[in-house]
């Protein structure tokens, strides 16, 4: 089925999220929508899926104008969508999930589970998905859950399949499998819209590429175009993906973690007997697919999560059972992975956000009162030094772009007198220009002789920053390897193989 978007415009108040976007996806084509986070890709797809109504423009399927009032209409017209966060019921089986909402029924309106199983088996066999219809979704690995989502869409006769950042949660191997599936689907005639900001994947799988930036189409590209050409189109200027850095000047052990065990929210061991040492002047990256205990490890290090076993020693100071405030006062800088939830107070001004973890004494407090004069001065200094693009220091943090928000967090943490920096997904959802800046700052912190721990799911980021790489899988560190280790080896380790 041919999909055409003509002049789609979507505004949110003064913000134009989509500005007259034209897009044509031919039948059986894998069309990649490439753009940075915040470029307007998801908004566009939500318009297509009937979740938002466009302010201007029209949607055509096989040259017929459509008028979607909601996702139901879009599905009925043959559009299927696999969201970044899966819409599956974990305690249901694959078959139950697939038919949910349009269940085949037998006599007396009972659920015809056999028909559902048959449907799943049929689709699974046709495209080589290898999915057991009776498996519980919660028991499946993430890659398989994603295939269930795809089956769900195909079971409703989707002719146009939208995949929103499908590889964000996958290991490199699972990503390769997904790409093979996409190619198979396209060959069978399904049109695929593949939303991503990862250049490598686009080059590997797309037939055609449309690049959008700041809500508007920048232009079309071919998969044979070089990565730097595509990156330049995405950000509007030439970017340097490699971070320039000297070899590390290692000092004493800065952070020593011994046999650390943390029990998670579901009473299972999420961090399992983890040991590592980070030296002063060194970056240790903790790589791994999202959800393998990295988040909990970071939270345990900064005191946000109770430690059930093992030890965390900062220099000579045991901080295993310290409170968050004690950890902060011991000089640990922390960039949390979810900045809008944990890193920033959206309704606070930038200046107010600079003092969230230093409200008890100088320079931000004078007795019981906030030191407004000092705060204003420091805020201006940090905004300049860290290149935060904002109208003023009294702008609310939530009004900034992702990259500038992250710079506020980075500025706050790096401007303190640190003995350790822990940065979790430091550039997630950040524009390429800001990525470069943040990376430089992290390396500068290392070069100032501080131990640095980076937790990242992006292999590019890991290889750009790390001196050594520890790979986590199911709560354990499967190995600590040199930064020069190949992508393939790291990929295998992220799937549980030892180095």
């Amino acid at each position, binding site marked *: 089925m041919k999909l055409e978007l003509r002049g789609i415009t979507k505004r949110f108040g003064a913000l134009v999220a989509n500005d007259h976007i034209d897009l044509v996806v031919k039948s059986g084509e894998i069309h990649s929508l490439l753009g940075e986070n915040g470029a307007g890709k998801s908004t566009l797809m939500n318009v297509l899926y009937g979740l938002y109504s466009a302010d201007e423009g029209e949607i055509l399927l096989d040259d017929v104008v459509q008028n979607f009032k909601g996702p139901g209409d879009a599905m009925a017209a043959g559009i299927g969508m696999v969201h970044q966060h899966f819409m599956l019921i974990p305690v249901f089986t694959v078959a139950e999930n697939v038919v949910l909402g349009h269940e085949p029924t037998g006599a007396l309106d009972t659920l015809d589970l056999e028909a559902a199983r048959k449907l799943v088996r049929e689709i699974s066999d046709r495209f080589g998905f290898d999915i057991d219809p009776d498996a519980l979704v919660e028991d499946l690995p993430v890659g398989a859950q994603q295939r269930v989502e795809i089956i769900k869409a195909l079971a409703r006769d989707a002719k146009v399949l939208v995949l929103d950042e499908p590889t964000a949660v996958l290991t490199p191997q699972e990503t390769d499998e997904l790409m093979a599936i996409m190619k198979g689907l396209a060959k069978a005639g399904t049109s695929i819209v593949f939303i991503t900001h990862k250049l490598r994947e686009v080059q590997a799988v797309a037939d055609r590429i449309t690049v959008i930036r700041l809500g508007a189409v920048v232009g079309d590209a071919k998969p044979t175009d070089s990565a730097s050409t595509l990156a330049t189109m995405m950000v509007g200027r030439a970017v340097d993906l490699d971070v320039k850095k000297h070899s590390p000047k290692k000092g004493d052990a800065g952070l020593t973690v011994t046999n650390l065990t943390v029990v998670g929210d579901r009473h299972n061991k999420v961090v399992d007997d983890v040991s590592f040492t980070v030296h002063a002047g060194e970056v240790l990256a903790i790589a791994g697919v999202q959800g393998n205990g990295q988040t909990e490890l970071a939270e345990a290090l900064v005191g946000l999560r109770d430690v059930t076993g093992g030890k965390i020693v900062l220099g000579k100071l045991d901080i295993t059972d310290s409170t968050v405030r004690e950890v902060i006062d011991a000089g640990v800088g922390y960039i*949390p992975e979810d900045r809008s939830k944990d890193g*920033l*107070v*959206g309704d606070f001004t930038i200046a107010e956000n600079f*003092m*969230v973890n230093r*409200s008890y004494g100088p320079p931000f407090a004078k007795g*019981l009162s*906030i030191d407004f004069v000092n705060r204003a001065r420091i805020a201006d200094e940090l905004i300049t030094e860290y290149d935060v693009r904002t109208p003023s220091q009294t702008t609310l943090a939530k009004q900034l772009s992702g990259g500038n928000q992250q710079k506020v967090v980075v500025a706050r943490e790096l401007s303190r007198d640190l003995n350790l920096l822990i940065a979790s997904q430091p550039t997630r959802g950040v524009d390429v220009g800001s990525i470069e800046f943040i990376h430089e700052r992290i390396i500068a912190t290392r070069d100032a002789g501080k131990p640095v721990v980076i937790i990242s799911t992006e292999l590019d980021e890991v290889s750009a920053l790390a001196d050594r790489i520890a790979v986590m899988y199911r709560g354990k560190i499967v190995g600590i390897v040199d930064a020069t280790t190949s992508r393939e080896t790291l990929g295998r380790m992220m799937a549980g193989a030892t180095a």
Partner: protein
Amino acid sequence: MNNAVETPVVNRGNAVLKEILSGGATRALLSVVLGFVVGALFMVFSNEAFLTAAQYFTARPADSLAAAWTAIADGYSALFRGSIYNYAADDIVVAFRPLTETLRFAGPLIASGLGIALAFRVGLFNIGASGQLLFGALWATWISTRVSLPWGVHLVVAALVAILASAAYAAVVGFLKARTGAHEVIVTIMMNYIAAGILTYFFRTPELLREVDGGGTPKSDAPAETAQLPYLLGDQYTLHWGFILAIVGVFAYWWIMERSTMGYRFRMVGHNPDAARTAGINVERTFMIAMAVSGAFVGLAAVNQALGARAGMTPDIDGTIGFDAITVALLGSSTAPGVLLAGLLFGAFKAGAPAMQVIGLSPEITGVVQGFIVLFIAAPPLVRAIFRLPPPQKSTVVADWWRSLVTKGGRK
């Protein structure tokens, strides 16, 4: 490995509260205007002359309209005479009495409104102003009727004890929330009943606080003269120093919330408890401290009620202040100037109600107006939350209203 199927947890109650409080001055002002319009309709439709004229409306509509206009004009001018300036009085002292009455009523409303507002800003629903007020008043009454102290000292001690008692009573709520996760709404409501019960028991028991030589009804003695809040403008007006305390409270509230690091942490926890925790703030302890400070402001209202009296007190000493405080905080967007103005407005309603009764209107109309004002402020986000509707894209009542006017027939 289940991270991928988790859904984000949204604290619905908190989001609603945030939206109600973010309405700002325009929404508050519009709500007040709309409240008065609804009040006017009640006056018209309960007016005999209008109802009579309406029976021959088609024949002579002007009669109905004139009657309606007279009803509204009479009603609101009575409210004005009763609450601001009695232009019908012969004597300048009498003419200004309504205004002083408004201020007298406004004192405890402002003070307790500040307490509720502070809790709101920290993300807590303190529904317990009534209980906190009663508990503070109980101990103020104990000091003022059962303890003899020299002039000056007596009043200060009684006031401090009231404030501390109210603060402690509220802190219990914060403690239970921090330790057990008990929801503050349930706990504060239950503690209202407990406080009311304790106070009645004290006022009924001769060995405790019952009026010396009193009868069977629960009633206390009048506060000793040394413990009474002095009249502010001499003996011709009953306005006492409690109002000044409330004004001091407004400044204290402003300083705490806008200038102090403690208020900064309160606001941080209110806006984003996760970020606060990550920044090293002990969120549970902040809840406890905030509840205590919230209770201390309610304690100022207790001082007003217990030490402003010149006669013996009954267990309904809190009147409707406990719940009016919530409406004052909501109408005032939980800001210092907002609560001051909202408290004055509701004080005026209380002072003006009797004057409306004099001209034959039911005094409950002011209560209806008061209720509608808060309804107009709180309803849009509440209605959306109940029916799980998406927020409007530019979420202000005024913007929606304008949009519907401008595009005639609403959005497509």
